[in-house]
C-alpha cells in the first residue's frame, strides 16, 4: 500500500503543538504513505467564519483551496478544521459557483486523521505502545459533524500498555469554542471545569482527543488547577513506541 498524503497541520498545531504534526507524519509514514507538507498553508478560516466575518473567512478558504489544489489526500489533526473544510466551505461559497465547485471537489479528499487511518489506510493497530490510563474526550465537531465516535476508541484499544476509561458525559463540550473562549471566559472556563471534574473522576492520568484546541483548553484548566494529568493528541499516542 502506498499513496501520497499532504499534511494540513492547522495553524494551532503549526504554531503551538508542532509535535502533534510530526507524530501524525510518523504514523502516516509507518502506514506506508509518502507524506508532504505544502509550505504555503496557513489556516482554514474558521476563526473568522465563526466570528461572523464571512468575507475574511472566504479569502482564507480560497487560499486553502489553492494550496491543496493538487493533493490526493489531505490529512488533518483536527475534527473541527476538517469539518470547516468539508461542511462549511460549501456554505461560505454558496453564492460563488466557481469556488463552490472547487470546495466540493476538495470535500472528499480532506480527512480527519483518525478517520483516515481507519477508513482509508484501514488499520486499527499501528504498533503503538504507551503505558497510561487514558480517557477520551469527544470533540464536538468531530463527533457531531463528522460522526467520529467509536473510531478513536478503537485505535486506542489497540495501543499496548494503554487502558481506556470512559468519563461521564464524554460528549459534552470542553468550552473552547474558538473566540467564545475569550469572549465569554467565565462561561468557557466553567464548562472546562465541569469537563475536568469528569476527567479526574475516572482516575486517568492522560486525556486524549483528536483536536489540539480542546486539549489546549483542557490542559490549560488542568494546569491552572495544579493537576498532574496530561493531555495528548491521538496522533502522539499512536506514534508512541
Amino acid at each position, binding site marked *: 500500500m502506498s499513496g501520497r498524503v499532504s499534511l494540513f497541520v492547522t495553524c494551532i498545531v503549526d504554531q503551538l503543538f508542532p509535535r502533534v504534526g510530526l507524530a501524525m507524519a510518523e504514523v502516516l509514514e509507518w502506514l506506508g504513505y509518502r507524506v508532504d507538507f505544502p509550505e504555503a498553508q496557513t489556516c482554514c478560516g474558521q476563526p473568522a467564519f465563526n466570528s461572523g466575518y464571512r468575507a475574511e473567512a472566504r479569502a482564507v478558504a480560497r487560499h486553502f483551496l489553492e494550496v491543496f489544489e493538487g493533493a490526493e489526500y489531505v490529512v488533518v489533526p483536527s475534527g473541527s478544521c476538517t469539518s470547516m473544510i468539508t461542511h462549511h466551505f460549501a456554505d461560505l461559497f454558496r453564492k460563488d459557483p466557481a469556488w463552490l465547485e472547487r470546495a466540493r471537489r476538495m470535500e472528499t479528499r480532506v480527512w480527519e486523521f483518525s478517520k483516515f487511518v481507519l477508513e482509508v489506510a484501514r488499520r486499527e493497530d499501528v504498533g503503538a505502545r504507551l503505558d497510561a490510563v487514558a480517557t477520551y474526550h469527544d470533540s464536538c465537531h468531530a463527533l457531531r*459533524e463528522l460522526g467520529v465516535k467509536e473510531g478513536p476508541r478503537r485505535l486506542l484499544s489497540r495501543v499496548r500498555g494503554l487502558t481506556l476509561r470512559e468519563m461521564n458525559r464524554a460528549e459534552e463540550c470542553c468550552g473552547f469554542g474558538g473566540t467564545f473562549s475569550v469572549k465569554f*471566559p467565565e462561561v468557557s472556563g466553567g464548562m472546562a471545569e465541569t469537563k475536568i471534574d469528569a476527567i479526574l473522576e475516572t482516575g486517568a492520568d492522560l486525556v486524549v482527543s483528536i483536536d489540539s484546541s480542546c486539549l489546549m483548553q483542557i490542559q490549560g484548566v488542568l494546569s491552572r488547577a495544579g493537576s498532574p494529568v496530561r493531555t495528548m493528541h491521538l496522533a502522539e499516542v499512536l506514534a508512541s513506541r
Partner: protein
Amino acid sequence: MLTGSYPRFTETLADPSLQLAIYTATGRLMDKRRATVMPEALPDYQELRNQAHLLKKHTLENLDYYLEQFQAALQARGGKVVYCKEGSEVVEFLAGLARERRAEVIVKSKSMTTEEIHFNERLAEFGVEPVETDLGEYIIQLTHQRPYHIVAPALHMTRYDVARVFQERLGVENETEPEKQTRIARRMLREKFLAADIGVSGANFLVAGSGAVVLVENEGNARMATTLPKVHVAVAGIEKMIPRAQDLAVFLKLLGRSGTGQPLTVYTSFLTGPRREGEVDGPEEFYVVLLDNGRTRLLADREKRESLFCIRCGACLNHCPVYRKIGGHSYPTTYSGPIGAILTPQYLGAKHSPWLPFASSLCGACAEVCPVKIDIPKILLDLRSEAVKAKRKDGENRVEAWSFKIWAWIMRHPRWYEAAGLAARAVLGSEDEGWLRRVPLWLRVGPLKEWLSRRDLPPPPERSFRQLWRSRLPAREE
C-alpha cells in the same frame, strides 16, 4: 471589541446551589430523554425526526392555506378564530371579553406564547386576575419571575425555595415535602378554578384539518382550565399548525420523549370547539387567538424560517452546556437556551442583544437532540454574520473588524504568517517554563488576558511545525 463588551453572568456562575440545581435538573432530563429515544426504545427515532422536520417545513411553506382550513373547520364546530398581530391585541381582546362576561378571575394553563407577550402583567392592569395553574408556573407567578426553562419554569428552585415562597406568599406553614406542597397549591387553585369565568391555554399543536387544539400536560390543570370555565381561549403562535390529526403520530412520539423523557405525557387533550348539545362538559364559548408577533417576518426568510419549526420541548436547553452554566434568566427574553438565542435576535432585531448569537461554543448538542432538526448552530452562524454587518454599518466594532482584516491578510501571505508566529512565540517566553500562568504585562490585554483569566497558556515551542519539518527533510531524503 474582541472581548470586553460581553456579559459575564458572574452571579449565576458564582452561586453553587443554583449551579447544582440547574445541573441536576437538566442532567436528569438528558438521561430520561436518552432512555426513551435510544434505538432499543424507539427504533424509528431518526426517521420520526426527519418526518417531523418535513411536516413542519411543508406546513410553514403553505401556512396561508392551513390557517384558512383551520379557521373553517373550527367555525363549523362553533369556535371562533381571532387574529392578532401583536401581544397588545391579545391582551385587549381578553380584557374586552372579561369586561363583557364580568369575569374577575382567569385561570391559565402553561403557555410560553402568553409569557412571550407578558400576558399576566398586562392583563392585571385591566383589573383582571390571571392565575397560573401549572405548579411550576404558579410558583413563578408568586415570585414575579419569568420562566427559567421552556418546560420546567421553576427548574432553578429547590423544594426549600418553594417552601419559603409558599410561606411568604400564601401564609402557610413551611412545608418542604413536594407532595404536601402540591396539596397546598391544589387547595389554593381549586378555589380559583371554581371562581374563574374564563380559562386561557396555549396550544401545543393546531390541527388544520379538524380545527382542533391539542394540549399536552402532566398535571391535569390544562384540562380543568379549558373545560370548567364558561369561556375557553387558546392563545397560539401561527406556527403551531400541523396539517392532519394523523401527523400527531409523529409529533406526540417526539415531544414527550424529547422534553421530559416520557413516551407520552400524562394528559393529551383534543379540543374541538364549545360544548355541543347533549355533552356534559366543556366551555360555552371557544376562541383560538392566532398570534403573529414577528413570526411572519421570520417566515419570509427562507434560510432561517426553520426557527419556527420549534415545538418547545426544551431539549436544546437541557443539552446546552452554556445554558447549563448561565441558566434561563441570563437570556434577555422569555425564550432561553439555544432556541432563544436564535429566536430573540430574529424577533427583536440583530441589535437588541448583539452578544446572544455569540454566547455559544457551537458544540452542536442542541441540533443533535432537536426533535424537528432545527440546525441551530448554522442559524447562530448566520446571525453572527448579520450582527457583524449591522455593527459595521453603524461604524461600531472597529477594532475587531480591523483585527480580522489584518488576520485574513496575514493568513494569505505565508511568509508574513511565519514571521508573525516567530514574533509571537519570541515574546511569550520559552518552552522550558511549562504551561504559562502569566505573560509580560504589556501583553495582558484583550484575548490573551481573557484566556489567562481562567486557564494557563501552552508554552510556545521554540520552533513551529514548518521549521521542524524543514530540518527533517534532508534526513528523510537520504
